[in-house]
């Protein structure tokens, strides 16, 4: 896998999962930069600022998004994400990550076009590589 072909935004309210996913990303290789956020709000702010800080960039961004978080959940994040500037939005692919066993969560994720994939935790290095390959080749 070539170097730095994809940026990652990590959104998870669990410190352990953030750490774990950062390590997995490192092992998988090819992801940089990695931006981690413990709240969806902070991630949205950062994504919105990209329109100004790197207006010319076309580096794809994978958003690894937890579903169940306090204040704002993954689905609310997605609906807020829709109103970001197109220049940023078009770079992003959202991957939902969850420990949920609720069938309606999976069905809901499948019904939302902005969500590229749904992964049941735990995430592994191989899953991550597979996701990146599919997302980049689909572009």
């Amino acid at each position, binding site marked *: 896998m070539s170097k730095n072909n994809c940026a990652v935004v990590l959104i998870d309210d669990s410190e352990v*999962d953030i750490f*774990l996913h950062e390590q997995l990303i490192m092992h998988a290789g090819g992801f940089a930069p990695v931006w981690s956020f413990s709240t969806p709000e902070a991630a949205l702010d950062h994504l919105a600022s990209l329109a100004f800080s790197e207006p010319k960039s076309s580096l794809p961004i994978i958003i690894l998004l937890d579903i*169940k978080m306090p204040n704002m959940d993954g689905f609310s994040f997605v609906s807020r994400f829709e109103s970001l500037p197109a220049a940023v939005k078009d770079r992003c692919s959202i991957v939902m990550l969850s*420990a949920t*066993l609720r*069938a309606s969560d999976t069905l809901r994720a499948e019904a939302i076009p902005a969500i590229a994939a749904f992964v049941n*935790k*735990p995430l*592994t290095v191989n899953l991550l590589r597979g996701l990146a390959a599919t997302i980049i080749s689909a572009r």
Partner: protein
Amino acid sequence: MSEHRIRILYLDDEINNLNTFKASFRRNYEIYTALTVTEAKLLLEEIPVEIIIADQRMPNTTGVEFFNSIKEKYPDPIRILLTGYTDIEDLIDSINKGQIFRFIRKPWEDFELQNAIANAHDLYMARTLLKEKVVALEKANEELNRFIYSASHDMRSPLVSVLGIINLAKTDESITDPNGYMELIESCILRLDEFIKKVIEYYRNSRVDTETESVDFAKIINESIEANRHRNNMVQFSVDVQQDHVFRGDAFRTSIVLNNLISNAIKYQKSDEPHPKVHLTVRTLPRKAIISIEDNGVGILHTHLNDIFRMFFRSNRTDSSGTGIGLYIVKEALSMMGGTIEVDSTYGQGTKFEIILPNHVEE
């Protein structure tokens, strides 16, 4: 039971009847009277009455017509019709439409009317109570639903984090573990995760409505095998499905049953068996499907055969990794489908389950 007195609206074009009624019943009930339909409707806008009494014969309309005109807007009050004539067609019609609780002949006997009012009120209260219960039950159900999924998620989250960390430790080889402690931790975590999943499966099985649809046994079996194969890659499967007749049934519960049995057939193989095998057959008939699943695994002690479908039962000599809930779910799902299961097993040699499912193909 109620704090207030029973509220009654009485509609009649003869003022004398209204006055007589008031005189007889004002002590017992809260009475509202109306001479015309317009008056009656105005009163209904303001006052939540429990019982409506109407005269059948009025100058421009009838009691039945009046009840008809208010049934959409005020479905709850219990209706009593007073009539001096036997307008039999109208009466039959309105009683059949369920709009009228009683009809009473004029001139009325006080005790008869009083009885009718008391019965009408009982019915009103019973219906109200039932409605409240239904609302409370729906709310409780919804809360349980939220609780189950929320609790299962919150229990699984830390478990999958631990599994992730174990995977990470394996990948970067940062832990020296000559005694295999990590494997032990992983197997315990996997077991707990399996248990949580089974509890949710049981819950879903008890909640999801039974739906009749066309069932593709070969597809369900192949999906189950693919989902469980990783537990033991040595196992050889032979699948023989002859779906000669269209089979209609509950595909969701059929897959729960087959998935649990296939998973068990793989899980309970002998560790020293050189050729672990699982053989599945399906035959569909006009009225039923017969499914068998046979393995050459550890088998079940004869004395335990009667207990294996009990909740949380684990055959302790052979079952080190089970949750004790899989076969219970199988039995529950089958009883919801009207199916049966039989088991035949020889300890140390293997187990055979035979299932019969009713075919709900339209006649």
